[in-house]
């Protein structure tokens, strides 16, 4: 069912599609990254893929020479007949970027935020790319293959209010607060 969409799409934009396959029944199409918005405009408005399912990326560090390292992967579904499609685009590192889909599908924004913090992929034109699951001081992109799984993170300095609360005892000595209490008595 979805293969028909791919054929229709290929006929309409022959120079955009780079590769298609139907492995285990999952209709997949890989497109040029600079046609990303055009592709999803077609899929949503003309082909009727209205349901947002998933956006993620994969890092294929060290695969065949010359091939781009990252792949952005989007899954969509069509409400009326349940057809599913997977759309991919290859992006070269070390600072990959692609257009944002948050103007096309509302669900795209949060998944792009996650993808951005995990893989360092910049979604151009996104209204909000703040870290979602990680904290703002996090260094590096943890789901990249060259980020070691046992990597430690630098300590985040205490905030102003926390400094006052935790790091200053009234007298600068151990148990200083006890001494201070005694003085009051």
């Amino acid at each position, binding site marked *: 069912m979805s293969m028909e969409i791919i054929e229709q799409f290929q006929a309409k934009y022959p120079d955009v599609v780079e590769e298609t396959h139907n*492995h285990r029944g999952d209709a997949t199409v890989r497109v040029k990254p600079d046609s990303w918005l055009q592709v999803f405009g077609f899929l949503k408005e003309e082909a009727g893929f209205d349901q947002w399912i998933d956006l993620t990326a994969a890092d294929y560090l060290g695969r065949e020479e010359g091939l781009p390292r990252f792949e952005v992967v989007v899954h969509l579904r069509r409400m009326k007949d349940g057809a599913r499609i997977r759309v991919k685009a290859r992006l070269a590192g070390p600072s990959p970027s692609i257009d944002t889909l948050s103007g096309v*599908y*509302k669900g795209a924004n949060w998944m792009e935020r996650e993808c951005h913090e995990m893989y360092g992929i910049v979604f151009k034109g996104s209204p909000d790319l703040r870290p*979602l699951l990680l904290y703002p001081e996090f260094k590096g992109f943890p789901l990249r293959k060259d980020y070691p*799984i046992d990597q430690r993170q630098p300590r985040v300095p205490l905030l102003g209010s926390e400094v006052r609360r935790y790091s200053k005892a009234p007298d600068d000595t151990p148990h200083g607060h006890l001494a201070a209490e005694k003085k009051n008595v």
Partner: protein
Amino acid sequence: MNANHIMNTMEMEQELENDLLEITLGPSHPAMHGTIQMKVKLDGERVAFCDVEPGYLHRGFEKECEDHRWNQIFPYTDRLNYVSPIINNVAFAMAAEKLCGLEVPERCQYLRVILSEMCRITDHLTCLAAVVMELGAFTAFLYFVKARELYYDLLESVTGARLTYSWLRIGGARWDIPDGFVEQAKKAIPETRRILKEIDGLFTKNRIFLDRVVNVGVISQSDAISYGITGPFLRSTGVAYDVRKAHPYAVYDRFEFDIPVGENGDCFDRYRVRMAEMEQSLRILEQALPKIPGGPISVKDPKYTLPDKQAVYTTIEGTINHFKLIFDDIHPPKGEVYAAVEGGNGELGFYLVSDGGNKPVKCRCRPPCFPIMAALGGIITGHMLADIIPIFGSVNMIGGEMDR
């Protein structure tokens, strides 16, 4: 109303806009189940802006999966949605089996359906219990938990654990069901119906409850679809999308059940959809329990499943097979797949990529409550501060799968 008065009102509004009160709910707030933070700007008691910040339970699920062998991932999937771990097990097992091209024996498929439906019931019971407790009905919480206990006992008798089951394996299951399981399960069904009827009598026409949930937290159909919302949250808006019907997996196509839908997409509809779905799950259990076929529970393929213990201790092939699977694990063929099941909260999908090795290159979990949380800030905006509690409760956010 003269022009002067309008000018005054506008000035007043401007002043109020500048005077928004910022408060932070969570991450350790009794009504923020799991750990989630909401930065809310209040205009009086009305929410003018809400920023939802998840991530306090992030533990690197995908990174850990890429560092572990295929069958070692099951314990991690238990901890995604810890209220219905079997459904997560099924989702991952199905994706991996699709990658390997394995066809699981019928007995295992029946058991997967039965235990999934039991988990769906516990999931809905837990969600509703939390909602009503946060609205002040602590007694009703105990009613829900009483019903849940029936299924926890059943699941414990099969898997040996009450919370993290790790029961499935790629190509089958770890253990068969014990003797007397079917009889005990058949006894639990009328007992659950009785408790559900009591709960229904307590809430469905309860004025105190209705005032808090009717027309609260409404989302439109088109918004829900565009956000990627699935499950009871989508069905409450009137869209009859259920993965079990739309893309039947295991043996769901052999059972008769309905997809309950709501009309308005508010918190009350989500409550009603969940109550009705438990009844449908009980119907599936009633049909499936007497029909469990005999036969093996795992694929008999030495490349994918462990041999019988008898063969391990008495034959050289069995020993080597066991050794190879324990120390090297399976090697799914190269490729990428996406497989989805209907979880307690909606479509739970796994996107797996294999390069032919014994560890996945990519193991992405598509959590069902993620898109709902993305929409939550917009749903809350415009409501009263107190409405956050029932709206957030009806999302049934599970920190384990939201933050992964």
